């Protein structure tokens, strides 16, 4: 009898223990299979692979060649920082494919996009598409490259383009939203495509984005897969697709839980376009356990291109190692996104624009850059645009200057005094009977750069008499809080990649109130539920505006944002970290080398041109 009681208790206790394990903070941590998704990036200083606990001698499934033969070091380009766990699948439609299949970064290794985005100048360069023209206000005509063919020898035609676009119309996949603006995509002969926009909702910005972002899929491969799955997306998602057929210069060679290797396709059609084949015969992404392991391998020359957040990168070349970043001096990396804090507009105290502005003025951006970003974030110039030539041209900088805040604690205190927020006995201000705090400031646990940034913000707020406490729940909890508006202040990156639709898309993400569900239901942008009809109107106008008109609208919108402060950018973050080690491969593009090859890790968008430039 007694032993029964003990058993029950024991079983219960074990369950409790396992629950408690959640609170114990230890070395193990969450996996980030795709730690690098446009701006939604963990600095994974603690990102552990999703366990690759395969029992000995299992888990390797060959791609083309079969055995895990080592590839010669001088023929292999090693990359890290894009894959943290065992490969899930190589199916673009699954939503969580493994390297090198990717949506959102224009990764041109196996599947290619019609055009290559160049983050240096924001221009689109020809790839599968040779040119694009707006034949009228609503129609985009794309000429395709006649030479293009799939790795199985089939020609690449307009049917493939139409098919790929229409997959987004048929199913809820990454490029579904383009159909909000697109009426139809139709072939115009075998080597041209016409995209017509919806007359009531045209949007040149996003349609232009689509031609550099959507990876082209072969109709003759995927149509049978669709049929086999009964046109059910859930079933299509389960397709593993071990050997993807694409138009790109590489094919799958080998993968297991430790690495993924691609082999060059020597019949690559692009030889005609680029004049030669890419230099590396193989490209390997080793799946490192965490940043530290990846950094060590990079430092030792076992990795050539690192897409990892490496603190104090200058120490690497001070030791004499042939390591480079794109920019020779600080901030070393080009900015690509702005991780920001969003205020919940319905919280008492935070609903006052002066309070929000005071918080923005209290924040020590320099310290955040130093401590959280190792100094990789340039001086903060608050705006809806990044401080890059290609984005800042949209806004009249002189006009917004008077409204831009800088770190100014005295000014912030004066501002709070002027609205009558007096300090109480405990040093915390009270505004109209409402104590300013405690407010929770939230971001996911383990995103160490974000955690550090928020700690600084909380400290800074104390100096102006506002009480802010940091709160670091697990990622799913943060995600849920963000969407349902269950927060006071929360950190997230609005629209964090470099595409033709930015800065419009970023502004929309921060400020657009139509289609945003009320608090308690899920919203997918404007998480603080900011509402301003004037801003909405401008956001709707921008996509169809040109030149000076667009600039006027952007400037107006930026002024509204600077006045209302619905969000505060804390730092600039690169779209992709790009650090190279030239022990094996030399001639990687850097700033000012005249090549205009952007720092897109030698495999994304126009960055892939680096592969034709490097040599042993």
């Amino acid at each position: 009898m007694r032993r029964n009681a003990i058993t029950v208790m024991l079983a219960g206790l074990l369950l409790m223990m396992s629950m408690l394990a959640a609170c114990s903070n230890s070395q193990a941590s969450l996996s980030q299979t795709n730690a690098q998704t446009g701006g939604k990036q963990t600095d994974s200083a603690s990102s552990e692979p999703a366990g690759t606990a395969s029992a000995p001698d299992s888990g390797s499934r060959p791609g083309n060649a079969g055995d895990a033969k080592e590839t010669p070091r001088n023929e292999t380009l090693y990359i890290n920082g894009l894959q943290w766990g065992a490969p899930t699948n190589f199916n673009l439609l699954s939503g969580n494919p493994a390297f090198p299949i990717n949506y959102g970064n224009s990764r041109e290794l196996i599947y290619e996009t019609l055009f290559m985005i160049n983050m240096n100048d924001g221009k689109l360069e020809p790839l599968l598409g040779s040119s694009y023209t707006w034949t009228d206000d609503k129609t985009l005509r794309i000429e395709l490259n006649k030479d293009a063919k799939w790795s199985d020898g089939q020609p690449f035609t307009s049917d493939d383009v139409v098919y790929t676009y229409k997959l987004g119309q048929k199913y809820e996949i990454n490029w579904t939203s383009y159909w909000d603006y697109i009426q139809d995509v139709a072939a115009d002969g075998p080597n041209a495509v016409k995209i017509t926009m919806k007359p009531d909702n045209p949007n040149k910005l996003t349609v232009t984005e689509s031609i550099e972002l959507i990876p082209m899929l072969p109709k003759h491969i995927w149509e049978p897969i669709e049929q086999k799955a009964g046109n059910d997306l859930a079933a299509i998602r389960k397709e593993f697709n071990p050997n993807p057929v694409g138009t790109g210069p590489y094919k799958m060679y080998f993968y297991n839980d430790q690495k993924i290797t691609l082999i060059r396709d020597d019949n690559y059609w692009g030889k005609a376009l680029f004049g030669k084949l890419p230099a590396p015969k193989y490209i390997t992404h080793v799946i490192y356990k965490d940043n530290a392991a990846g950094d060590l391998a990079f430092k030792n020359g076992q990795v050539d291109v690192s897409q990892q957040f490496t603190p104090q990168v200058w120490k690497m070349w001070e030791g004499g190692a042939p390591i480079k970043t794109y920019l020779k001096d600080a901030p070393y990396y080009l900015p690509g996104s702005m991780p920001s804090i969003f205020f919940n507009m319905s919280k008492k105290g935070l609903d006052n624009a002066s309070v929000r502005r005071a918080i923005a003025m209290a924040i020590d951006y320099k310290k955040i850059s130093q401590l959280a970003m190792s100094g990789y974030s340039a001086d903060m110039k608050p705006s809806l645009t990044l401080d890059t030539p290609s984005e800042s041209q949209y806004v009249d900088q002189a006009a917004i200057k008077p409204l831009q805040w800088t770190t100014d604690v005295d000014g912030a205190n004066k501002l709070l005094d002027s609205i009558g927020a007096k300090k109480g006995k405990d040093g915390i201000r009270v505004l109209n009977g409402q104590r300013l705090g405690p407010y929770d400031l939230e971001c996911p646990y383990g995103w160490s750069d974000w955690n550090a940034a928020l700690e600084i913000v909380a400290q800074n707020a104390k100096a102006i008499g506002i009480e802010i406490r940091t709160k670091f729940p697990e990622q799913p909890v943060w995600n849920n809080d963000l969407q349902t508006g269950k927060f006071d202040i929360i950190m997230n990156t609005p629209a964090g990649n470099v595409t033709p639709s930015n800065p419009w898309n970023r502004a929309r993400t921060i400020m657009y109130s139509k289609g945003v569900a009320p608090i308690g239901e899920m919203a997918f942008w404007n998480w603080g539920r900011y509402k301003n009809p004037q801003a909405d109107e401008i956001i709707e106008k921008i996509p169809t505006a040109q030149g000076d008109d667009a600039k006027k609208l952007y400037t107006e919108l930026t002024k509204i944002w600077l006045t209302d402060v619905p969000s505060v950018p804390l730092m600039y973050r690169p779209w992709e970290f790009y650090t190279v080690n030239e022990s094996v491969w030399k001639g990687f593009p850097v700033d000012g080398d005249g090549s205009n090859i952007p720092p897109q890790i030698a495999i994304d968008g126009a960055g892939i041109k680096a592969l034709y430039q490097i040599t042993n």
Partner: protein
Amino acid sequence: MNAYTKYFVKKTAWYLVTLLIALLLNFLLPRLIEGNPVSAIASQVTQGMTDSDSIKKVYENFMREFGVDKPLYVQFGIYLRHLFTGDLGTSFGLYPRKVSDILASAVPWTVGLQLPAILVGWILGNVLGAVAAYRRGVFDKVLFPAALFVNSIPFFTLAIILLYLLGITLKWFPISGGYDFQMVPHFGLDFIGSVIRHHTLPFLSIVLVAIGGQAIGMREMSLYELNADYVLYSKLLGIRDSRVARYVFKNAMLPQITGLALSIGTMVGGSLICEIVFSYPGIGTWLFTAIRQLDYPLISGCTLLIAMTVLLANFTIEIIYGIVDPRIKAAQMEEN
């Protein structure tokens, strides 16, 4: 119906009830954590989407696919139905991997860590305890406090201390993982060597505590037996010391054997935190990852496995004892 059958039926019923409660908790507890279980996968799938309707649809589709949109009691029914067919479901976090595959890959690591540690700890601990009880003197004066000290350290604390001293400071052993990450698992000397190097620290942190605990238990039991009347009687009869010692230790071993059986039963869940500390690719690390990702099926799978092994071990012991232990036999008789 004889006494033993009755005993057997009663025990089985008890254990089934316990199992059902364990299943319910398994199912319910993970779902009490706040947060959205589909957000991890859905936010990847919706990358690039900008309209609420499609994004919402993706969330809804996943909720439907994972079955978390239904009321809890319906979900519980489905969960039970799937369990009967041996289907533990699909992991949310590592979608679309099967939970059973993940567990199958993790169990060998956990067993490989625990089984040697339990056996070595048990054998060494018992020998040391018995010797200490029999010899007394200096040996006992040193060993007993040492064993007490080691045994009172929670083994995850010991794990962290070992990690810090031997892993981080002295760099003798790797600090995490099951084998060198750059290696492809194969049967070769270098790989096996790597596994052993990674195995050492977690193994030590479990085995040291186990030795201490066993030694104390064995010493106590031996002392108790040594002072028993039959020992004195045997001595008066002039039976040789070595023969008496044999009887004594045979008797003292009984509870120790029970202990061994129990610890083998709790093997799977016995080193959760130690595994987490060393990121060892066993059940503990998976459970931790699953909890952090709100991966309901994987959490339930891990906890179910742990609960089942504990229950099964206890049940087996009770049944066997019912047959072999005269005291329990007597109790059965009395009840009739």
